[in-house]
């Protein structure tokens, strides 16, 4: 391709100085990566750390999704004999000694639901998504040799690993893992007497998540520092691809909100271990009045939790938005529509995300007057979100759309974000939330908008940047089957849940037959469970494709297979630590010069022609 020549020319003629203090680069390793352990385990290369995050995230995704299959079996077929699961789940399957029929223990059901939420929200969609792509793309797209602190970056991964290991161990506790919901509301989570899952399981859950917070903070500080300080020459803020903007705001959100979660978790740990009562007041549990545990407020924890919890959903969705913006633009061979509007939307969402947390708490017993403010800000968020959606659609308009797995998942992302975002307008309105709070409507809403949509963004990113990671392509046929299976499957799972919610069926019910009003959807619940199993099977196809392609996939022969303008495709296919063999390329234009001047695309490294005005303004 002609463009590669331009890149090479740029590299030759630049005569640039390396501003970042790195000396010569042998791209197959450096003094920090001389041994196997340094190179593949305690690696400080951001690309390797990205892969570590990704593969760990995928393992957790399989575990977390597998858990959802088990509890979906319970919800879809509550009266079926589950004895066949005993070899896998052991004592959690209660066998009736007279009939020999097995059923899932309610404690275990709630533990599964809790673990599913924790794993997917934190380990998969925070670490697995933001951790992977921030690490992979920030240095490569802004033109840096690595993160500001590769050491901290490595620690970030290993704290994440430690958090995962602790949570994994808690799965095998005698009293079971934590079962108080992924939000861990006290007093249930604070009182070991109240539930088996609130015994050692809750302590390990808290410990695990505190380490996770450390991981996020180490990563976040690094991402922000790197983006602000280590951009290559010419890469001003408005020449950064939207991915980088998204990662920047994500990291800022994480840095500002995760410490608050940590403070809540510390207080909860103190309540559990040291006998304090930050969140406890006037409790009588297990036949005993806790006379010394008064004066706290259970609602205080909810404020602390959701002060993280709401930014957290944007920590999850913003990187996906960034990835999708990039993939859509490159696939449509067209600039992203309204680059600046996209940037300001990201910033607006970032700011507003700190002002809406109590919309999770309309019915929590907090003063109803406060809800006025949170309704206002919550519905205002719909505006920047709508702008983003319209801009994505406008990006496709007039394009020359190359449809592959990555762009299909991007289109799927937009569809999911619309469907899930619109139901947020219902839930953000406190009066509607009276009825819809904690029903399946909420489950449908957040699974579509931040679960499935974020996964779609992640898949788009993986298919698109797989060559950048492994120098090979993923299999396209399997990728497209994966897309259609997931698209149809996800809607088949979560679409019907809206109707459950509109009928008022509460979430987190082990079975529905105790209530007349909630028990009339057995057919729908079976349908959802079957859809979930099939969709899960399709994901296995992705995992096979991923690992197969890593070793046997079609080799990447051109440096810039998608015809992208951004810097990550100017580094050699087998780039080692340090990314570029020679000097770091300089940037002369915004990242979306596609279709300009009748050329298919103009890389960021190409200097502006005489009198040419940089795009995006």
């Amino acid at each position, binding site marked *: 391709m002609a463009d590669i020549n331009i890149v090479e020319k740029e590299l030759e003629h630049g005569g640039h100085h390396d501003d970042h203090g790195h000396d010569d680069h042998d791209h197959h390793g450096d003094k920090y990566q001389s041994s196997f352990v340094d190179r593949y385990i305690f690696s400080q290369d951001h690309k390797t750390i990205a892969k570590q995050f990704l593969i760990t995230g995928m393992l957790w995704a399989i575990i977390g999704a597998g858990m959802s299959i088990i509890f979906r079996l319970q919800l879809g077929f509550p009266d079926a004999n589950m004895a066949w699961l005993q070899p896998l789940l052991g004592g959690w399957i209660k066998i009736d000694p007279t009939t020999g029929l097995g059923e899932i223990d309610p404690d275990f*059901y709630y533990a599964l639901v809790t673990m599913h939420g924790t794993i997917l929200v934190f380990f998969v969609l925070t670490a697995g998504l933001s951790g992977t792509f921030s690490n992979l793309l920030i240095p490569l797209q802004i033109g840096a040799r690595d993160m500001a602190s590769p050491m901290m970056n490595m620690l970030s991964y290993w704290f994440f690993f430690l958090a995962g290991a602790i949570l994994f161990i808690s799965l095998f506790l005698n009293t079971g893992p934590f079962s108080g*919901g992924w939000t861990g509301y006290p*007093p249930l989570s604070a009182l070991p007497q109240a539930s088996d899952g609130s015994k050692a399981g809750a302590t390990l859950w808290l410990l695990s998540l505190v380490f996770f917070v450390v991981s996020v903070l180490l990563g976040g500080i690094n991402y922000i520092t790197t983006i602000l300080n280590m951009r290559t020459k010419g890469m001003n803020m408005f020449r950064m691809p939207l991915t980088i903007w998204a990662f920047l705001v994500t990291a800022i959100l994480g840095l500002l909100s995760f410490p608050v979660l940590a403070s809540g978790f510390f207080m909860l740990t103190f309540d559990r271990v040291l006998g304090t009562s930050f969140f406890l*007041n*006037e409790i*009588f*549990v297990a036949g005993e*009045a806790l*006379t010394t545990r*008064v004066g706290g*407020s*259970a609602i205080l924890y909810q404020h602390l939790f959701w002060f993280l919890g709401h930014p957290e959903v944007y920590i999850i969705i913003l990187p996906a938005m960034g990835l999708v913006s990039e993939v859509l633009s490159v696939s449509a061979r*067209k*600039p992203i529509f*309204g*680059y*600046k509007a996209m940037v300001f939307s990201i910033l607006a969402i970032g700011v507003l995300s700190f002002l809406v947390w109590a919309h999770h708490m309309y019915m929590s*017993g907090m003063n*109803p007057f406060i809800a*006025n403010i949170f309704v*206002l800000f919550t*519905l205002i968020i*719909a*505006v920047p979100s709508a702008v983003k959606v319209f801009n994505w*659609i*406008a990006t*496709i*308009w*007039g*394009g020359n*759309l190359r449809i*592959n797995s990555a762009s299909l998942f991007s*289109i799927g992302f937009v569809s999911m974000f*619309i469907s899930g975002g619109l139901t947020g307008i219902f839930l953000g309105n406190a*009066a*509607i939330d009276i*009825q*819809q709070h*904690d029903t399946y409507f909420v489950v449908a809403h957040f699974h579509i908008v931040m679960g499935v949509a974020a996964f779609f963004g992640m898949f788009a990113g993986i298919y698109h940047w797989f060559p950048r990671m492994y120098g090979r392509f993923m*299999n396209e*046929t399997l990728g*497209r*089957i994966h897309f*259609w299976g997931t698209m149809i499957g996800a*809607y088949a799972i979560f*679409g019907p849940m809206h*109707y459950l919610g509109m*009928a*008022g069926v*509460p979430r*987190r019910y082990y*079975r529905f037959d*105790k209530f*007349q*009003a909630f028990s009339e959807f057995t057919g729908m619940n079976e349908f959802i469970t079957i859809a979930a199993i099939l969709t899960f099977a399709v994901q296995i*196809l992705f995992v096979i494709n991923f690992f197969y392609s890593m070793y046997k996939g*079609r080799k990447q022969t051109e440096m810039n297979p998608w015809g992208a303008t951004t810097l990550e495709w100017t580094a050699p296919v087998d780039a080692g630590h340090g990314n570029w063999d020679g000097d770091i390329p300089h940037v002369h234009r915004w990242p*979306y010069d596609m*279709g300009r*001047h009748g050329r298919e695309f103009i890389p960021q490294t190409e200097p502006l022609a005489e009198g040419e005005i940089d795009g995006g303004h």
Partner: protein
Amino acid sequence: MGFTIGALCVILLAVFIVQIGKARELASIVRNDPAEQDEINKFHAGLGMIFMVTFLVACVVSFIYYIPTTLGWGPNIAASAHGPEVDYLFNLTLFFTAIVFVLTHIALFWFTWKYKGKQGKIGLYWAHNETLEMVWMIIPSVVMTFLVVGGLQAWNNIMLDLPENAVSVTLPEEDGQYIEIEATGSQFLWFLRYPGRDGKIGTKYFTQINSSNKVGQTWTDEKNMDDFMTNEIVLPVGKPVRVRITARDVLHNFYIRDMRVKTDAVPGMPTYFNFTPTVTTDSMRRRLSQEPEWQVADKNFDTKQRWELFEYELACAELCGNGHYSMRNLVKIVTEEEYLDWLDKQEGGELAEVVIDSTTGQVEYTYVPGSVKSQYFSKIHNTDKDPLEGKTADLEKLVENKLRVNVYMTKMTDMRNNAELGSADYTNAEEAMNKLKPIQKTARITTDVKLSTEALAKAKAIADAVNVTPVVPVTVPVPDSTVQDTTK
């Protein structure tokens, strides 16, 4: 065995699909046809169009199919005064979002089809358009303004606190009066407390909780005397209710689906929800009897149709532990008369003895043990734990306590019929009733008193005729076997 075979099948299928993928990839490399991507674009953009049409049609069809259970449509109508506001707002939002949903999906997939990639074509360099961007920023802003204003109006109406001078009574007759009940969430059942005839819920504190005092009523508070616990919520239709929601151990959530009522129960912090039921259980059943989905035999009772067994249900909607899914109590909305009847049955029990002091006018009454649901009378009264000892006979308290007077009058009538009522007793009774008259609140009791006045006039005549000598104090034995029950 079945497990193994299943796993093998899945593995085989996966291998099969992977082989197809591999073969297609190889074929593509061998063919080396640059137009191949165009074919792929066309195929998948086409699939996208098919998906979009199918998806939108499925949304509409499934919505129509589920109308019978969807809020605000069909039989799932709100059965409380504020409920229709919630349902209206839901449907208003549905209207706006449905338009956006359909239009954006059509645009998304139609553009994908229209602008599918073709070899040699170059994408349009169209980076932004300020007018267009302003338009699609302003339109959502305007719609959001509508929804925020409408939503906040509804929310503040619904959440409006009671006026400061509002009083809780047995049966509200005028503005500013309401029924107060209390629901206490506990793992894994609701404790429901009624205020009794004083209309006031007594205080409670968690240290008082024990096996016989489930919510921890404090017995020094006289308002607790007539509070009683029930297994179901029974409320009169059309009367404002305030539920005091509390929790004993962990968070719970007081949720009545049909009433559009939901609020967390928080240990150590009472929360409140005010609502007015508007549809009785009976009229809801009659309404459901018109719906085909409800005209089928019930799963559990073949002889009855589903609508005949309809009940409003109280559920828990905040994860509270492994029994969270089973915290169910019935909510029965009844007419005023039925409500008062039910109240009588709840607290009335059976009267064992009434003692009237002719000089002081004090009346002492005793119930058959176990027949009174008031926690105080069944558990505390006449035990050494009773801090209110002696106060129970106070006539002023009796006057406040309409139920007891009501029972008393009934017994008087009985005694009149049996000619057991002396003239001194009559005088005392009349005095008591004169005190009662100004505070009669309910039509029912007023009627009773009228009847009783006539009856007592007769009683006086009878008493005169038989010339009963007054006894001080007069012990009026209650007729028939109940007297013996006191000795048990």
